[in-house]
């Protein structure tokens, strides 16, 4: 499984930086790359999180609204907290 993903990821990285040679696929690169992310994080918890997030985004799209500075600020706060945990020395092995 991981090997397939690694190969596909490498392939798509090449395609992403070689637009002239992949004119058909490039418009779909964004969707494909994130679909891979969704697919490979399909653990029980990951699927729930992604589904909730997808539902939130669907509501935004349906309402024809763009995310606000506040929406991004909330995500940034979560990202920084998670990053700090990863960078903390305690329990890092």
């Amino acid at each position, binding site marked *: 499984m991981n090997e397939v993903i690694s190969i596909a990821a490498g392939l798509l990285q090449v395609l992403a930086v070689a637009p002239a040679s992949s004119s058909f696929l490039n418009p779909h690169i*964004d*969707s*494909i790359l994130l*679909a*891979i*992310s969704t697919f490979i*994080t399909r653990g029980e918890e990951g699927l729930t999180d992604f589904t909730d997030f997808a539902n939130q985004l*669907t509501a935004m799209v349906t309402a024809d609204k763009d995310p606000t500075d506040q929406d991004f600020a909330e995500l940034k706060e979560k990202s920084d907290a998670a990053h700090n945990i990863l960078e903390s020395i305690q329990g890092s*092995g």
Partner: protein
Amino acid sequence: MSTEMLLRIQQRSLAGWLIGSGTFLIASLIFLLGCQSNPVAIAKTPLQSAYAVYGGFVIVEEQAAQLKKSGALASQPVILDEIIAADRLAKPSADALLQATLDALAAQHALSAGNGSPEKMQIATDNLTHWVTQAQIDILALTSAVQGAKP
């Protein structure tokens, strides 16, 4: 043109077609398997795409932090180090995406207020589109590392 040259050209064309078809089939398969709950597929504007990618990154990063906090990887320090290294690669890219998004929002607000220009809005949107793609590439290693580490 000699027969040998024609044969070589035909062989190259066939190889190119096979590579191209294979690439598309692999990508399509992965896309179809992963199309459920795909935030980027839902997004319709550049800002929504940015939100989808950044939000996806945060979910994966939180899963990585949870793995570390839970001690599930205490006996696998190498895997934990891989996750931390992947996060160190992904986070600057995600932060650049965030900055590009904030720039695009600022350009949009300025345009709405009559202080901006369509050219500045276009530059901000192009930059945002670039980082939406680049961040997805840089986040992929973190996603893979976290998935590989799940018990």
